[in-house]
């Protein structure tokens, strides 16, 4: 298997979907390249798990096709696909020992017992549970159980992609860190394609080569962590990625200027005229200056986050955040200056590019 192609797939849990709200997953066209690590990021109920279950075959899409390499697997059951899935809560077979848990997918596929033994023993070493091989899996801790779930996926020689559905949710914070680095290490070593669902942006950004952001059943952006940060394609991505999120302000746009109330904000390019547009600028690209230099604001609060401070200000009744250094003086009468190159323009929540 090489790459996974989603060709116009959409899914509805209703038998006869009517409006847009009936679709848990609106049309998605996407290619997952072989061996890459992807994070699937989005709020609860945005269709992440639906998308994952469609890829693994637990669900059959209402529309569209799924290709693994060149072969169409749309109607194939999950056990026939070269895919493993790790769930939010560790799934272990309570009555079996750790060894038998890991051997289960192999024995179901009628792998000869000698090979089962060597593969399971290797997997026990990889997930570091050799000394617990004979223990009943039910008596292990949550992180050990989750390692078994992962091991059951990796133990099969035919697996080329592993899907993770928020696998670290029930793990203690310090073990989370350990498991995450082990997972990263395993990914490097085995080279499987990894699709990792999470709603934790730190997890997504540290893990993945590419991040897919979903919102209300749609893929709103696909890109590297840098792209998500610098050029959010949807205002939701702006809010969701970064802490604090992007400042989004209603404005009308005409040419090289955006007009917000009585203020003019210069833009880096020339845009089509739009009366109800929004401008987005990250707090990192907002500078606090003395009154008169930029947009007049009232500073409401300053939060010290350790390495930097967040200035929460009010501009024409809208909240605007700015990130300033620890030792920067804040003027009593302040104004804000937006870096024109970093101001994005949105119409209907979607990013618009300047005219060429």
């Amino acid at each position, binding site marked *: 298997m090489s790459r996974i192609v989603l060709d116009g797939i959409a899914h509805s849990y209703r038998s006869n979907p009517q409006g847009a709200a009936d679709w848990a997953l609106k049309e998605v066209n996407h290619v997952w390249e072989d061996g890459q690590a992807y994070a699937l990021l989005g709020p609860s109920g945005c269709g992440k798990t639906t998308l994952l279950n469609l890829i693994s075959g637990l669900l059959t899409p209402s529309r569209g096709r799924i290709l693994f390499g060149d072969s169409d697997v749309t109607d194939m059951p999950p056990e026939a696909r070269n895919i493993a899935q790790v*769930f939010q809560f560790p799934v272990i077979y309570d009555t079996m020992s750790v060894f038998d848990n890991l051997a289960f997918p192999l024995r179901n596929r009628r792998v000869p017992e000698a090979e089962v033994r060597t593969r399971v023993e290797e997997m026990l070493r990889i997930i570091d549970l050799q000394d617990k091989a004979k223990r009943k899996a039910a008596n292990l801790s949550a992180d050990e159980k989750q390692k078994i779930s992962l091991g059951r996926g990796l133990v099969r020689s035919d697996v080329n992609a592993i899907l993770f559905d928020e696998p670290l949710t029930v793990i203690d914070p310090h073990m989370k860190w350990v498991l995450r680095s082990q997972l990263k290490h395993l990914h490097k070593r085995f080279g499987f394609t990894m699709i990792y669902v999470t709603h934790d942006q730190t997890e997504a950004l540290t893990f993945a080569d590419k991040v897919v952001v979903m919102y209300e059943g749609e893929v709103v952006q696909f890109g590297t962590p840098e792209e998500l940060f610098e050029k959010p394609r949807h205002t939701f991505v702006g809010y969701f990625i970064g802490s604090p999120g992007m400042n989004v302000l209603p404005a009308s746009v005409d040419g090289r200027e955006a007009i917000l109330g009585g203020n003019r904000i210069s833009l880096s390019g020339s845009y089509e005229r739009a009366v109800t547009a929004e401008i987005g600028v990250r707090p990192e690209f907002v500078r606090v200056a003395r009154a008169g230099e930029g947009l007049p604001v009232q500073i409401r609060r300053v939060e010290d986050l350790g390495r930097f401070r967040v200035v929460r200000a009010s501009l024409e009744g809208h909240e605007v955040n700015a990130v300033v250094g620890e030792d920067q003086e804040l003027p009593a009468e302040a104004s804000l200056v937006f870096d024109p190159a970093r101001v994005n323009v949105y119409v209907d929540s979607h990013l618009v590019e300047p005219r060429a």
Partner: protein
Amino acid sequence: MEKPWNNKAWFLVLPVIVLVAFSAIIPLMTVVNYSVQDTFGNNVFFWAGTEWFEETLQSERFWAALGRNLVFSFIILAIEVPLGIAVALAMPRKGIGVPVCLVLMALPLLIPWNVVGTIWQVFGRIDIGLLGRVLADFGIYYNYTQNPLHAWITVIVMDVWHWTSLVVLLCYAGLVSIPDAYYQAARIDGASRWAVFRYIQLPKLKHVLLIAVLLRFMDSFMIYTEPFVVTGGGPGNTTTFLSIDLVKMAIGQFDLGPAAAMSIIYFLIILALSYVFYTVMTQTGRDRETGR
């Protein structure tokens, strides 16, 4: 951590102790009192010691009834538990079928024992009963009043009809509480239908099955009303269970002493067997290596 120790806490359990005393301990002690004495009426009692216990344990009648009880309970468990699991597995998990099935399953449980007995008594009669007549038309002369086998079949079918629902409902509750992820993981692991049952559903049903087995064992071991209504313990003594014998002895013959001794033995047998069931079912599947 040091546990706080306060004897005043006993006051909090006092209401329960009083309640249990009136409902269980005091009646039981009365029975114990009867079992070691003899009476000829007029509230005059003589000390009898262990005489009644010895008599009971040496009586063939007691052992025969006890044997019938054990066979009956064994058959009941062997039929109702697998059947209950099978029906629960076949029940729908969502949609309009769920409430319909649940109500249908609950119906037999709502019917009083003696009514169930009467229903089956009429149903099975060869002259006017639907079942008896139809079977007779096929050349099977089904007669629970004269044929011991037919009497047994009637009593067992009646109990299965009445109580399998309880096992079904308990198992169904256990099944619906299994998270979807288990089934999904099993599909990805390529597990067969049987493997899903054996390694996911059955282990997760362990606790409800323990309750089901205990309830059905205790109840079936105390069977009284149905055979009393349908067969009256006959033909001959073939459906005379311990409880029927006990009532005959205590109320029919007014032998309070032997009846009390028998009650206590009966009670101890149920207690001991329930304990065995409980221990066996909670011990299996434990990690022997770690002793947990």
